[in-house]
């Protein structure tokens, strides 16, 4: 008897099908050649760590790779991030990072923003599990910092 009796179905909001799918088969993991941004992020508290590589051409992302290890949430989130940024302008990426931050804080996001996020909205499920918000944000914060430094 899975879920049901033991109350595990309460976690469905956290572990939506799309999250488990990205966790099991992460996207964009092949290394990028000659990356412009190449950094490691980690959360020493839980040991999660990710290696982020980006190729930036004329203010748009022409190549991305995110690999690493962590819990289902941090891995799925990293994969969703990698999928999102591919081909986007740096401005669009920064807007999306801001939007995800607000989503996870429980703030409202507009319909247009929701459209841009698409599957990523599934990350909103962590709001009910506050200790897991850091897991979801780890790669986003890391990529954002890397981008800021690159553009500065």
């Amino acid at each position, binding site marked *: 008897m899975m879920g049901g009796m033991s*109350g*595990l179905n309460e976690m469905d909001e956290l572990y939506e099908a799309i999250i488990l799918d990205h966790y099991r088969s992460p996207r964009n993991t092949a290394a990028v050649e000659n990356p412009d941004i190449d950094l490691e992020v980690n959360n020493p*508290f*839980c040991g999660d*760590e990710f290696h982020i590589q980006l190729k930036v051409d004329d203010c748009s992302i022409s190549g991305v790779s995110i690999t690493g290890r962590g819990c289902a949430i941090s891995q799925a989130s990293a994969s969703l991030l990698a999928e999102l940024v591919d081909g986007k302008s740096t401005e669009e990426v920064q807007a999306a990072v801001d939007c995800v931050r607000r989503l996870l804080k429980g703030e409202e996001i507009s319909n247009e923003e929701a459209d841009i996020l698409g599957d990523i909205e599934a990350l909103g499920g962590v709001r009910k599990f506050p200790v897991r918000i850091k897991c979801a944000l780890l790669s986003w914060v890391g990529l954002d910092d890397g981008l800021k430094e690159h553009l500065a």
Partner: protein
Amino acid sequence: MSESTLSAGTRVFDPDAIRADFPILQRKIHGQELVYLDNAATTQKPKQVIKSLTDYYEQTNANVHRGVHTLSMEATNGYEVARTKVAKFINAPRSEEVIWTRNTSESLNLVAATWAEANISEGDNIVITAMEHHSNIVPWQQLAFKKGAEIRYLSHNDDGVINFVDASSVIDSRTKLVSVTHMSNVLGTINPVAKLAELAHDVGAVILVDAAQSVPHMPVDVQAIDADFLAFSAHKMLGPTGIGVLWGRLDLLEEMPPYMFGGDMILEVTYEGAKWNDLPYKFEAGTPNIADAFATGAAVDYLSDLGMENVWQHEQELTAYAMEQILSLDNVKVLGPQDSSQRGGVISFVHDTIHPHDLGTALDQQGIAIRTGHHCAMPLVRSYDVVAAARASFYIYNTRSEVDALVNGISETEGYFNR
């Protein structure tokens, strides 16, 4: 560990009666009965300890060592009675060797800032094990940086047992301090501290025992293990948070400079200087944590009534059962000694496919509280080539059926993530 008449106990070890003393065990978590398996982090409190706090504030509250009025005398007396209970509990020769601190971490820092500050110089070394809690690593690292001293690590094998062939070459004539955990909060290993004390004393070094995980769970006799310092926290042994103990050998404590300065720790102050108070007050500046000292006395009474031999035996049986059940799971690996007779009631494990954090969240949904992460022992956890682990740790109120709930909870979680 030694047999002492104190450890036999006067109360029958009846798990149902024990559970009835812990109000929090009635709580439901996500609609499920609470299964509390995070005792290495902190233990729950029996109503006797909780009542000692309310009794203190309702009947006795006053400042200590300062008044001639009845309440102050009663508060002072109770504060000192609690110290005597602690001294007896660890078989300290004298109660003035027991110093109240905030917790194990402060006890360790006190020794680092006073004894070690005065006795460790450039080229000396401090020996610790590779399985220490951050609290027994970082104070020594900082001191070593400052003094130009060296930190050396005693290694252990994969099973988490200290390598003794190695130990006699690591501890040498420049070793001033050996500071080791009595029981690992990650691996559950019980270290042979008496043997390490011998090696330390042979080279004229001092041994500090981090007893945060041993004093709560087994009879500990500072004289039998021949320790020089011993540190532990009340909150891991049924007592309140915010109070801990440093025990030290009288001659060492007497030579040591004070830790903090202020009221109570002085005998006489003039405009030109001050004269330090006698032990233990030299190390207790300012108004101490009086209420929590009373409650620590109540916690010691509770454990003494049960008898530490019985506490230890209960945990040994439960740990043996839990090891057998957890190891029977296909995808789970246990860190540390595989033989349960070599470990205390702490079991850290990793699952092949489920990250500890996901497991921790899923078990919480089932009312089961475990710890996940690096357990304040990052270098150790990393040495097992994992970034984090799950940990179940037991105490007097845990039962076999709670172990079954844990094992079942892990299987349910596998079902959930493999759906």
